[in-house]
């Protein structure tokens, strides 16, 4: 077994263990919310999913820049894995938020700035996935995807700050604020447990996906030389 596979397996075991602990913390240790009741427990999954999605999109940005600098398809595969993870977790965040909103807000969906900007962010990365299938040349696909992966990140700060820029129904940041979080310690522990579990699971899924993409690549495509466009000599002759 290679070192990489061992790390992957270790991460998988750690993710399962962390998920078990997070489940116990969220379902047993943390008390029900005084106002929201049991529905509040959904946030122990909703918030970690959103945070890890942000991290995944930041990873897409880093890997895209990495590809443009190194022209190595390994960076492109890392970016693709990050984008797929981010899209999946963003979709999960929206679905869980909707499930929570129905009993608490009384609606499945509302035109709230955080909700709308999150869906727009999801659409950006769906477009990123679409760009990948345009060419049979993996380097051309990677080049395009890298550009879109960098551009799409523009919306991440907009999503994060949307609850501060507008007076929204969605609550402002509870944990990432200057003062200590106004939460019961048991609830805060459950939330951090969820974040750890999701982070480990995200890394595990990302590593596995990168390995699958590498094994699916038919032939190692040669890195393109920085091809110059056709040169026109004086007098218009090539």
């Amino acid at each position: 077994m290679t070192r990489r596979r061992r790390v992957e397996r270790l991460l998988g075991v750690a993710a399962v263990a962390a998920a078990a602990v997070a489940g116990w913390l969220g379902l047993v240790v943390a008390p029900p919310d005084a106002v929201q009741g049991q529905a509040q427990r959904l946030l122990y999954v909703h918030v970690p999913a959103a945070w890890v999605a942000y991290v995944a999109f930041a990873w897409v940005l880093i890997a895209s820049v990495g590809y443009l600098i190194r022209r190595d398809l390994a960076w492109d595969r890392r970016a693709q894995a990050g984008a797929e993870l981010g899209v999946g977790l963003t979709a999960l965040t929206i679905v869980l938020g909707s499930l929570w909103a129905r009993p608490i807000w009384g609606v499945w969906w509302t035109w709230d700035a955080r909700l709308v900007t999150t869906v727009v962010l999801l659409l950006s990365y769906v477009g990123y996935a679409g760009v990948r299938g345009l060419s049979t040349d993996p380097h051309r696909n990677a080049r395009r995807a890298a550009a879109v992966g960098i551009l799409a990140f523009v919306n991440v700060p907009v999503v994060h700050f949307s609850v501060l820029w507008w007076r929204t129904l969605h609550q402002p940041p509870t944990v990432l604020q200057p003062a200590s979080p106004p939460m019961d310690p048991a609830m805060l522990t459950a939330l951090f447990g969820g974040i750890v579990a999701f982070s480990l699971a995200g890394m595990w899924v990302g590593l596995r996906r990168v390995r699958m993409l590498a094994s699916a690549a038919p032939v190692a495509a040669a890195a393109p030389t920085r091809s110059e466009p056709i040169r026109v000599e004086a007098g218009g002759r090539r």
Partner: protein
Amino acid sequence: MTASTVTLEASSSATQRRPRRTRQAWMVARRDLAAGVGGRRAAVAVLPLVAAVLLLAGLGFGAHPVVVEATAAPLVWLVVLLSAVPLARTVAADDAADDCWDLLRAVVDPTALLAGKLAAQWLLLTAAWAVASLLTAVSQGVTWPLSSVAGGILGALGLAAVTTMLGALLLSDQGHGSSLLAVLVLPVGLPALLAGGQLAVSGVSPTPWLAVLVAYDTVLLAVAWAVFPVMVEGS
């Protein structure tokens, strides 16, 4: 102006030395504007779209002053975003159709090519915003604050960077790639829609929204400057 004219000017001036970047950028921008406005490609694609969306929105919302007041500013920016999609198609498609894209890449420095294309897109998008604002003001009786002009200019600049990059990016895939433009351009234009819309609302403090647009423009121009040369490589 045709590609051959550009090539001729590029090769003949200063005894076959490349013209300076600013002159190259100016020539590219002039050529794109000539093709877009003089050749009516961009004008035909954008102006009827702007008019149609505003008319249909006016009809759909009905004659309710409260609704019009609340929706006029974002509606203008929605129209500008929608215009950005056909405009992005004109970035390099005209050059490709004239078989002069390779020539342009050969004789024009990539940074100058970006600057020229971006300047043309900026002007066209600003024109789309101005027409949409004017039509909305006339048809809906809306008065725009002065800050909306700054919003129009700054928002169009960031959007121009997006359309220039994506237009060059999807050049050789006019079929499937072209249909992806909407899903790529519209989400990345979100900050322009939000900040531009807020800057056109009377009574809203313009400073934070101008800061958002300046940051948006700075990021997108930096990304365009870094990425565009890679995009035109072998496109």
